[in-house]
């Protein structure tokens, strides 16, 4: 369980796993990222991606907060971080629906972390189903000519 939240279920490859005791250090501004060193960070979806740019190489994991499922800023932020060359783990943390899981993955997230309450309402099979839908999409065809 991560400190200070009631999250707790991580979805990876469509499967549930309890969140390990990962220490994500909450960062409120990009400047704070400078002194973080080799640690995982958690950021709000309003943080400027470019400001994190210089520190990205040393940060192993970034959790982007999803305060509400209908706040889609995290999707764009994830894409920007990937475009800046971020290679570490990206986690969407907060209110993300099973139906949004393929979107999150396609924007560059590796995993999603939800509350146990939500996991109870949207059990693993819904995430497995959603996981299957990641491949069939227009954007890959238009971007890379992939089928």
């Amino acid at each position, binding site marked *: 369980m991560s400190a200070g939240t009631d999250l707790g279920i991580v979805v990876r490859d469509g499967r549930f796993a309890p969140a390990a005791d990962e220490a994500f250090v909450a960062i409120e501004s990009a400047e704070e990222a400078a002194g973080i060193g080799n640690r995982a960070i958690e950021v709000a979806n*309003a943080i400027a991606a470019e400001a994190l740019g210089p520190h990205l190489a040393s940060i192993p994991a970034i959790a982007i907060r999803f305060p509400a499922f209908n706040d*889609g800023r995290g999707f*764009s932020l994830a894409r920007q971080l990937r475009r800046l060359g971020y290679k570490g783990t990206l986690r969407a943390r907060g209110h993300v*629906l099973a*139906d949004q899981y393929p979107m999150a993955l396609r924007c560059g997230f590796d995993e999603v972390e939800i509350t146990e309450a939500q996991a109870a*309402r*949207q059990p693993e099979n819904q995430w497995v189903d959603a996981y299957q839908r990641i491949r069939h999409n*227009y954007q890959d065809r*238009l971007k890379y000519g992939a*089928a």
Partner: protein
Amino acid sequence: MYTYNEFDEAFVRSRVAQFRGQVEKRLDGSLTEDEFRPLRLMNGLYLQLHAYMLRVAIPYGTLDSRKMRQLAHIAETWDRGYGHFTTRQNIQYNWPKLKDVPDMLDALADVGMHAIQTSGNCIRNVTSDHFAAAAADEIEDPRPTAELMRQWSTDHPEFQFLPRKFKIAITGAPNDRAVVKSHDIGIRMVRGDNGEVGYEISVGGGLGRSPFVGKVIREFLPKADLLPYLESIMQVYNLSGRRDNKYKARIKILVHETGLDEIRAEVEELFPQIREEFTHPSDELLAAIEPHFAPPAFVEKPLGDYEAALAADPLLRSFVETNVVAHKHPSYAIVTISLKPVGGTPGDATAEQMRVMADIAERYSHDELRISHEQNVILPHVAKADLPAVHAALRDAGLGTANVGLISDIIACPGMDYCALATARSIPIAQEISTRFNELKLEHEIGQMKIKISGCINACGHHHVGHIGILGLDRAGVENYQITLGGDGAETMTLGERAGPGFSAEELVPALERLIDAYLKVRRDRQESFLEAYRRLGVAPFKAALYPDQAKDAA
């Protein structure tokens, strides 16, 4: 016309299956209503005043007889035998049951249609010129670009949860029939310095509570750069658009508050980075789509009988004068079928009428139909020689109303007869206006006139750009109608000005009669339209006619 390939087919089928699952999840409680709502909205399903409403996209307004017949079939099987064509080239069914909606969506998929992204805070159905590929003034058919944007925006993973809805329109002609500058992104196809065709991109247009005319953010965008450029605008908007107040969440407010130059700078900075992600330039993608929109094989037919019929039949003559315009092929014409019969509901068609229109299109219009934002149906490619037969068939089905562009060709949103957001009714107002001016037999005398009615500030009825705009409001529990004057939705887009205090439902039509009377008195001659007279004279003579008591007081 674009026909679905295996990918499109599989995609919409999987979306239907997904929605079927979402309905089940809603019913078994694994989705709350708060969570289900945006998902059903993404599939075009609203909850309206009396029932659910399913909004089906007619991408860029183009369809064929098979699709139109299926729309009729759906209306009869799961709804009440009619449909309502909207100002966004959609069709709305007003009475579906939740449990039937997945079946309706499957029936749509059978003919390559869907209801995806006709609602919700995502990129909506891309609209376009209803005369595309037929109009004599066109630079290029805008529909391949519109189809490319449909594919790109459909299920785009990054842009499904924007601050607010997002509308894109494109025209390929200098005469703008798609009101592009009232859209979040408005695109005009233009020629560059070397004669090559590209796009002029505007952002931040919109009607609603705070209306704005779109501003040009890029004067010339090469075709190759289209998708990465659009994606750059979307990314700036998704990250910076306001989410604290839904009335300030559209991109028009972001552009207004931040300033066009700064938004442009942000977009241009992102653009080269995003372009790198696209291995295929957009012009290549377009080239693959263009063959779907190859022009039909036009045939020359002798015009002798047509000219004789025109000379002999005054009804045909009147129909041709109002409802028929020039086609780029000299022996063809574009026919507009008016869905505005006297006293009728603007934009409604019965299942039977849809079938008649499908039959006529199949036989006489190279199997093509269009839906216009003015809530009419277009037969884009009719040989002039066939006009008498087409007119006769339309008349038989109650579709021969000769009033396109006249005072009874009214745009009206559903208003409080259906819409949950409405503050007043629109439909009965439209019915009354068309009935009254038909009685007065003044319609042709008045000439070009666009009345547009919205049942609330959201402005789905485009009242800001009506020559006469009418906005229905709730004033202390009573319907009240505000009039705006001098609006224009064409390439010379202008927002109308509020004339003064509103009118009750009973006072409204008499006020309009006074207004029209004043116009007939002050116009230079029959050639000077209401809008032209308004532009020449300003608001004063019209205000005086609307508010005679105030005029007297002032005197």
